[in-house]
């Protein structure tokens, strides 16, 4: 019996080995190297001598005015796009869940932006929001409601807003699919019972639907928060961080520091600061959900 279980474990180990090797070589090792790099003056200006400088890179990141600008930009982007995508995604999912005909067609239409390339979508947005772009033409020449062209892409807040609109537009489809799957798992008898109790649609949504898909909501919240912090392509393509890094986010700033100025130590430290912020957020989100779990769930509505 014991030999059999040993054999079993050996078999499991052997089967896991290739996956673990790939994970170790391509994920764990680079992260470990990156961590080491963040404690060294790992910049190309000092390529042949990379002295250990302890926490100096972290201090430099924290003391850098631009870091706080890009950090605020990233947090704002996440704060706006995550609830935006989730609310619109859930709304669309509920609508599609309620119809019986053309359900697949609606799903495909909503999902189209998700499969569009980020680069192409960003370029289209750039074209639309250019100072001489489609939107200004529409507002100024067709509707004639604005006197001159609005500089959408040229200031910090309006540039970021364009990237946020793109982020939401592109993310609604993914949320819709995830929430639609979750909605189908909510037991129908709960709705029937609520009907008999005389509940309206809003109360059913608040007290049955939302608690019923809570797990999926948490999953989406964490995935989208990570996604929000990782925004890169749209910013790089739409504003390029202009004017003077005012619209940069953590990743575009990290890319700039590493590949344009060669300060890899700084960029490595920045990546760990970002990872720490994300981990903290994930823990907080779990806690919040657990607290709500303790207060009430399905059936106790």
């Amino acid at each position: 019996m014991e030999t059999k279980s040993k054999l079993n474990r050996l078999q499991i180990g052997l089967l896991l080995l290739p996956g673990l090797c790939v994970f170790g070589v391509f994920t764990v090792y680079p992260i470990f190297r990156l961590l080491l790099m963040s404690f060294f003056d790992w910049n190309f200006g000092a390529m042949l001598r990379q002295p250990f400088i302890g926490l100096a890179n972290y201090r430099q990141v924290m003391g850098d005015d631009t870091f706080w600008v890009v950090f605020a930009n990233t947090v704002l982007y996440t704060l706006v796009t995550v609830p935006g995508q989730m609310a619109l995604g859930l709304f669309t999912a509920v609508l599609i869940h309620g119809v019986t005909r053309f359900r697949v067609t609606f799903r495909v239409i909503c999902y189209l932006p998700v499969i569009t390339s980020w680069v192409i979508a960003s370029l289209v947005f750039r074209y639309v929001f250019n100072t001489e772009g489609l939107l200004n033409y529409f507002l100024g020449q067709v509707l004639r409601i604005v006197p001159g062209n609005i500089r959408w892409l040229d200031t910090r807040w309006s540039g970021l807003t364009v990237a946020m609109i793109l982020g939401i537009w592109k993310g609604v489809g993914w949320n819709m699919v995830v929430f639609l799957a979750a909605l189908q798992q909510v037991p129908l008898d709960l709705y029937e019972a609520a009907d008999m109790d005389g509940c309206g649609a809003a109360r059913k949504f608040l007290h049955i639907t939302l608690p019923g898909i809570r797990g999926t909501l948490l999953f989406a919240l964490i995935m989208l928060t990570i996604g929000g912090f990782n925004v890169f392509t749209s910013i790089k393509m739409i504003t390029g961080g202009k004017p003077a890094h005012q619209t940069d986010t953590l990743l575009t700033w990290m890319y700039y520091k590493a590949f344009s100025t060669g300060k890899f130590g700084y960029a490595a430290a920045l990546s760990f600061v970002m990872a720490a912020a994300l981990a903290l957020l994930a823990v907080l989100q779990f806690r919040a959900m657990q607290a709500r779990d303790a207060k009430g769930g399905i059936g106790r509505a």
Partner: protein
Amino acid sequence: MRSLCKSLVVLLVLTLALPCIPALGEAAQEPVTIDFWHHYSAQSAENETLMNVLIPKFEAENPAIRVNAVSHEWAELHDKVLVSAGSGSLPDVARCDIAWLPEFQKMGVLAALDEQPGFADVSGALLASTMKTAEVAGAHYGLALNTNSKILFYNVKMLQDAGVTPPATLDDWADALRKIAGTDANGRQVWGWNEPALSGWNLCPFIWSFGGALVSEDQTVASGYINGPATVKAVETFAALYQEGALTGFNSGDIPMTDGFGTGRYAMMLEGPWKTAELQGAYPDVAYGTAPMPAGEGGSISVLGGEDIAMFTTANQQAAWAFMRFMTGEYAQTEMAKCGQIPVNKAALASDTVKSAPFAPFLDAITTAKARPTVAAWAEIDNDLTGAVTAVISGQQSAQQAMDELAAKVDALLQE
């Protein structure tokens, strides 16, 4: 059966060994291959000349050397060298923007050339001002390869309509910009000037011509120069013209330079010799003229651009040096001049090809143009300069305040 197996094994061994046989015989005279990275764009006439004229000629003259030329985007090449330096996979030779050389030198990846055979003769045949761009701390880390500068391009009709002549002084220039700015017959906004970015390459001609400077002569200090009265005046003038709607171009949402100039939205710009071919290709009907950079208290001073050809420490030095000599020689320089590259070889400069080339108007500008500071921290200084001027033109800071803060930052960077 067994004999069949045996013969199969023998056949297999022979098949595997076959490719090695000619290699054994050729090993003695196998040519060395050097990698040459450049940023002549892949579709350009320069690249055609390089691949079909220059490299075949070089390889015919040097049968023991093969050249593997790889084209990169301009910005990508800089970053690629940084990354390759880290992973130890640098090429033998690269064509580098003159602004990158001090940075690469500080990284310790460039080979000093002063000890190469015939260095004095080779460098003596090139323009002294351009060879200066390859000199760091008394040694030479590259050979000047080609040079360029920017001059004023103006749209003839737009200037006529506004009743102005091509500006000779900076005061005329500011007046002209204000007169041109406004709306055209179709109600579209037009600007007097386009400046596509706010980096040193864009701002230096104004700072210098206003009589200002970025750093001291010995390039060790910025305070008193980058925040001196003339530099501040240049930045103030620039910002005021932007705020009045007389110039633009550096915003993400602006019309690209060539399109705006070609379609009559920008009346003037300061651009390099490549713009001639670009306008010819995209807007052949637009009538334009050229003039020197408008003069101020500092004179008419444009910015020196161009490229050096440099050798990395990991290179096959003998082969790399032979290729560098060839590329800076009269033949290669004259051939490249035919596709718009301004030569630095004095003999090539004296040739009829060069004197009648479309870039002839730029040759005068080159004699007075200045190079941007040749310091290792230039990329960061350049970035900080953009940030400071952006703060001024967006009205967040006064020019004096922004340049004072910048001076302190640049002083620290120069000390690094």
